[in-house]
Protein backbone atom coordinates (compact mmCIF):
# COMPACT_ATOMS: atom_id res chain seq x y z
CA UNK A 1 0.00 0.00 0.00
CA UNK A 2 1.58 3.32 -0.97
CA UNK A 3 2.12 5.68 1.97
CA UNK A 4 -0.07 8.36 0.37
CA UNK A 5 -3.29 6.47 1.09
CA UNK A 6 -2.47 5.74 4.70
CA UNK A 7 -4.24 7.95 7.20
CA UNK A 8 -1.88 10.78 8.11
CA UNK A 9 -2.34 10.21 11.82
CA UNK A 10 -1.13 6.61 11.72
CA UNK A 11 2.54 5.92 11.87
CA UNK A 12 3.33 2.87 9.75
CA UNK A 13 5.08 0.04 11.53
CA UNK A 14 8.85 0.29 11.10
CA UNK A 15 9.67 -3.05 12.73
CA UNK A 16 9.01 -6.38 11.04
CA UNK A 17 9.84 -9.77 12.52
CA UNK A 18 11.44 -10.93 9.26
CA UNK A 19 13.93 -8.06 9.47
CA UNK A 20 15.05 -8.86 13.02
CA UNK A 21 18.10 -11.13 13.32
CA UNK A 22 19.68 -12.73 16.38
CA UNK A 23 23.11 -14.36 16.30
CA UNK A 24 23.73 -13.30 12.72
CA UNK A 25 27.03 -14.75 11.49
CA UNK A 26 28.90 -12.44 9.14
CA UNK A 27 32.60 -12.05 8.45
CA UNK A 28 32.73 -8.36 7.57
CA UNK A 29 30.68 -5.18 7.55
CA UNK A 30 30.25 -5.51 3.79
CA UNK A 31 28.80 -8.98 4.23
CA UNK A 32 26.49 -7.73 6.96
CA UNK A 33 25.25 -4.80 4.87
CA UNK A 34 24.75 -6.95 1.78
CA UNK A 35 22.82 -9.55 3.74
CA UNK A 36 20.51 -7.05 5.43
CA UNK A 37 19.92 -4.87 2.38
CA UNK A 38 19.10 -7.91 0.25
CA UNK A 39 16.49 -8.97 2.79
CA UNK A 40 14.95 -5.51 2.49
CA UNK A 41 15.02 -5.79 -1.28
CA UNK A 42 13.32 -9.20 -1.16
CA UNK A 43 10.65 -7.74 1.09
CA UNK A 44 9.94 -5.07 -1.54
CA UNK A 45 10.88 -2.19 0.76
CA UNK A 46 13.72 -0.75 -1.31
CA UNK A 47 14.67 -0.46 -4.95
CA UNK A 48 17.36 -2.64 -6.60
CA UNK A 49 19.97 0.14 -6.29
CA UNK A 50 19.74 0.13 -2.49
CA UNK A 51 22.34 -2.54 -1.56
CA UNK A 52 25.12 -1.00 -3.67
CA UNK A 53 24.24 2.54 -2.59
CA UNK A 54 24.32 1.46 1.05
CA UNK A 55 27.83 -0.01 0.71
CA UNK A 56 29.04 3.10 -1.11
CA UNK A 57 27.68 5.44 1.49
CA UNK A 58 29.13 3.44 4.36
CA UNK A 59 32.52 3.72 2.66
CA UNK A 60 32.19 7.50 2.21
CA UNK A 61 30.46 8.25 5.54
CA UNK A 62 31.05 5.50 8.11
CA UNK A 63 28.33 4.98 10.72
CA UNK A 64 29.90 3.17 13.69
CA UNK A 65 28.90 4.69 17.04
CA UNK A 66 30.42 3.77 20.40
CA UNK A 67 28.11 3.63 23.39
CA UNK A 68 28.91 2.66 26.96
CA UNK A 69 27.44 -0.84 26.61
CA UNK A 70 28.47 -1.66 23.04
CA UNK A 71 29.36 -0.28 19.65
CA UNK A 72 26.64 -0.21 17.02
CA UNK A 73 26.34 0.77 13.39
CA UNK A 74 23.60 2.88 11.87
CA UNK A 75 24.10 2.40 8.12
CA UNK A 76 21.72 4.22 5.82
CA UNK A 77 21.50 5.77 2.41
CA UNK A 78 19.55 8.25 0.34
CA UNK A 79 15.78 8.29 0.49
CA UNK A 80 15.45 7.83 -3.28
CA UNK A 81 16.18 4.09 -2.94
CA UNK A 82 13.45 3.60 -0.38
CA UNK A 83 9.95 2.45 -1.30
CA UNK A 84 8.58 1.92 2.18
CA UNK A 85 10.09 2.90 5.55
CA UNK A 86 11.41 0.06 7.67
CA UNK A 87 14.13 -0.82 10.13
CA UNK A 88 16.29 -3.94 10.03
CA UNK A 89 17.94 -4.88 13.34
CA UNK A 90 20.70 -7.45 13.66
CA UNK A 91 22.49 -8.74 16.76
CA UNK A 92 25.72 -10.25 15.48
CA UNK A 93 27.15 -13.57 16.66
CA UNK A 94 30.64 -12.05 16.61
CA UNK A 95 31.54 -8.35 16.37
CA UNK A 96 32.54 -6.98 12.97
CA UNK A 97 34.55 -3.82 12.45
CA UNK A 98 32.88 -0.62 11.35
CA UNK A 99 34.63 2.71 11.07
CA UNK A 100 33.46 5.43 13.44
CA UNK A 101 31.05 8.13 12.33
CA UNK A 102 32.94 11.41 12.10
CA UNK A 103 36.25 9.68 12.98
CA UNK A 104 36.98 7.23 10.14
CA UNK A 105 40.51 6.58 11.45
CA UNK A 106 38.89 4.73 14.33
CA UNK A 107 37.56 1.18 14.01
CA UNK A 108 34.81 -0.14 16.30
CA UNK A 109 33.83 -3.74 17.13
CA UNK A 110 30.15 -3.54 16.28
CA UNK A 111 27.70 -5.96 17.96
CA UNK A 112 24.40 -4.55 16.75
CA UNK A 113 23.35 -3.08 13.41
CA UNK A 114 20.34 -0.81 12.90
CA UNK A 115 19.60 -0.30 9.24
CA UNK A 116 16.77 2.17 8.62
CA UNK A 117 15.20 2.56 5.20
CA UNK A 118 14.20 6.18 5.39
CA UNK A 119 11.76 8.33 3.52
CA UNK A 120 11.58 11.68 5.20
CA UNK A 121 8.19 12.51 6.56
CA UNK A 122 8.27 14.17 9.97
CA UNK A 123 6.96 11.17 11.83
CA UNK A 124 9.93 9.13 10.68
CA UNK A 125 12.47 11.64 11.92
CA UNK A 126 10.69 11.62 15.28
CA UNK A 127 10.87 7.85 15.18
CA UNK A 128 14.63 7.94 14.51
CA UNK A 129 15.02 10.38 17.35
CA UNK A 130 13.31 7.85 19.64
CA UNK A 131 15.76 5.23 18.38
CA UNK A 132 18.67 7.51 19.33
CA UNK A 133 17.12 8.02 22.77
CA UNK A 134 16.94 4.23 23.16
CA UNK A 135 20.62 3.87 22.28
CA UNK A 136 21.36 6.00 25.32
CA UNK A 137 19.01 4.04 27.58
CA UNK A 138 20.88 1.75 30.00
CA UNK A 139 20.24 -1.90 29.23
CA UNK A 140 18.85 -1.38 25.71
CA UNK A 141 21.90 -2.54 23.74
CA UNK A 142 22.83 -5.24 26.25
CA UNK A 143 19.27 -6.54 26.02
CA UNK A 144 19.56 -6.81 22.25
CA UNK A 145 22.91 -8.59 22.41
CA UNK A 146 21.58 -11.06 24.97
CA UNK A 147 18.29 -11.77 23.19
CA UNK A 148 17.76 -15.51 22.94
CA UNK A 149 15.78 -15.49 19.70
CA UNK A 150 14.13 -13.40 17.00
CA UNK A 151 10.67 -13.39 18.50
CA UNK A 152 11.83 -12.17 21.91
CA UNK A 153 13.96 -9.46 20.33
CA UNK A 154 11.12 -8.32 18.05
CA UNK A 155 8.67 -8.14 20.96
CA UNK A 156 11.08 -6.28 23.23
CA UNK A 157 11.97 -3.79 20.48
CA UNK A 158 8.30 -3.07 19.90
CA UNK A 159 7.74 -2.50 23.58
CA UNK A 160 10.84 -0.30 23.82
CA UNK A 161 9.66 1.92 20.95
CA UNK A 162 6.20 2.31 22.41
CA UNK A 163 7.71 3.60 25.63
CA UNK A 164 10.63 5.55 24.22
CA UNK A 165 10.82 9.26 24.91
CA UNK A 166 11.10 11.56 21.91
Amino acid sequence: MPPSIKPASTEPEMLRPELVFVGLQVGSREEALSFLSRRMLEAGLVSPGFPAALLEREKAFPTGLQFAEAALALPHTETRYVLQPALAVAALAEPVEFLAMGAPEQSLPVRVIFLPAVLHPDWQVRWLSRLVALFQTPGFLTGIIQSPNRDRLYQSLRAAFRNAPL
Partner: protein
Amino acid sequence: MPQKVILVSCGTGVVTAETTALRIRKIAAERKWQVEVRVVEFRKLAQAAAGADVIVQIAPHDSTDYGIPKLSGLPFLTGFELDKTVQELEEILNPPDKPKPEPTENGL
Protein backbone atom coordinates in the same frame (compact mmCIF):
# COMPACT_ATOMS: atom_id res chain seq x y z
CA MET B 1 17.75 39.18 21.17
CA PRO B 2 17.69 38.49 17.42
CA GLN B 3 17.08 34.92 16.34
CA LYS B 4 20.28 32.94 15.78
CA VAL B 5 20.73 30.26 13.14
CA ILE B 6 22.18 26.81 13.82
CA LEU B 7 23.20 24.78 10.77
CA VAL B 8 23.22 21.01 11.09
CA SER B 9 25.17 19.19 8.45
CA CYS B 10 25.94 15.57 7.58
CA GLY B 11 26.96 13.62 4.48
CA THR B 12 23.67 13.75 2.66
CA GLY B 13 21.62 15.99 4.91
CA VAL B 14 19.20 13.23 5.86
CA VAL B 15 18.85 10.76 8.69
CA THR B 16 21.69 11.75 11.03
CA ALA B 17 21.38 15.49 10.41
CA GLU B 18 17.57 15.48 10.60
CA THR B 19 17.69 13.43 13.78
CA THR B 20 20.32 15.68 15.33
CA ALA B 21 18.37 18.78 14.32
CA LEU B 22 15.24 17.46 15.98
CA ARG B 23 17.17 16.80 19.20
CA ILE B 24 18.69 20.29 19.11
CA ARG B 25 15.24 21.84 18.56
CA LYS B 26 13.99 19.98 21.60
CA ILE B 27 16.86 21.24 23.76
CA ALA B 28 16.40 24.75 22.31
CA ALA B 29 12.71 24.72 23.27
CA GLU B 30 13.51 23.54 26.82
CA ARG B 31 16.13 26.25 27.24
CA LYS B 32 14.09 28.92 25.46
CA TRP B 33 16.78 29.65 22.89
CA GLN B 34 15.65 31.97 20.11
CA VAL B 35 17.04 29.84 17.28
CA GLU B 36 16.26 28.46 13.91
CA VAL B 37 17.78 25.03 13.24
CA ARG B 38 18.46 24.36 9.56
CA VAL B 39 19.57 21.08 8.03
CA VAL B 40 22.04 21.39 5.21
CA GLU B 41 23.78 18.96 2.94
CA PHE B 42 27.54 18.87 3.41
CA ARG B 43 28.17 20.12 -0.15
CA LYS B 44 26.05 23.22 0.43
CA LEU B 45 27.66 24.18 3.72
CA ALA B 46 29.77 27.06 2.39
CA GLN B 47 26.71 28.70 0.85
CA ALA B 48 24.55 28.20 3.94
CA ALA B 49 27.22 29.33 6.40
CA ALA B 50 26.87 32.95 5.28
CA GLY B 51 23.50 33.29 7.03
CA ALA B 52 24.29 31.23 10.12
CA ASP B 53 25.84 31.63 13.56
CA VAL B 54 27.16 28.14 14.25
CA ILE B 55 27.64 24.81 12.46
CA VAL B 56 26.87 21.51 14.14
CA GLN B 57 28.55 18.90 12.03
CA ILE B 58 28.22 15.12 12.09
CA ALA B 59 30.45 13.84 9.31
CA PRO B 60 32.64 14.13 7.37
CA HIS B 61 35.01 16.12 9.49
CA ASP B 62 35.69 19.32 7.61
CA SER B 63 38.52 21.69 8.45
CA THR B 64 37.34 24.54 6.20
CA ASP B 65 36.98 27.82 8.04
CA TYR B 66 33.50 29.22 7.37
CA GLY B 67 34.07 32.13 9.71
CA ILE B 68 31.65 30.80 12.34
CA PRO B 69 32.20 28.29 15.16
CA LYS B 70 31.84 24.57 14.48
CA LEU B 71 30.82 21.87 16.94
CA SER B 72 30.55 18.11 16.61
CA GLY B 73 26.97 16.85 16.48
CA LEU B 74 27.88 13.36 17.67
CA PRO B 75 26.99 14.07 21.33
CA PHE B 76 23.38 14.65 20.24
CA LEU B 77 23.35 11.09 18.88
CA THR B 78 25.41 9.32 21.52
CA GLY B 79 24.68 11.40 24.61
CA PHE B 80 28.41 11.27 25.40
CA GLU B 81 29.56 14.70 26.68
CA LEU B 82 26.18 16.12 25.64
CA ASP B 83 26.03 18.57 28.56
CA LYS B 84 29.39 20.01 27.58
CA THR B 85 28.33 20.42 23.95
CA VAL B 86 25.02 22.03 24.92
CA GLN B 87 26.89 24.46 27.14
CA GLU B 88 29.32 25.31 24.33
CA LEU B 89 26.42 25.87 21.98
CA GLU B 90 24.68 28.07 24.52
CA GLU B 91 27.80 30.19 24.95
CA ILE B 92 28.12 30.64 21.19
CA LEU B 93 24.47 31.62 20.83
CA ASN B 94 24.43 33.78 23.88
CA PRO B 95 27.93 34.99 24.60
CA PRO B 96 28.37 35.95 28.25
CA ASP B 97 28.81 39.69 28.69
CA LYS B 98 32.41 40.71 28.84
CA PRO B 99 33.28 41.74 32.37
CA LYS B 100 33.03 45.51 32.56
CA PRO B 101 36.23 47.23 33.56
CA GLU B 102 36.22 48.34 37.16
CA PRO B 103 35.27 51.97 37.37
CA THR B 104 38.31 53.94 38.30
CA GLU B 105 37.94 55.85 41.46
CA ASN B 106 40.63 58.41 41.01
CA GLY B 107 41.36 60.47 43.99
CA LEU B 108 38.77 58.85 46.25
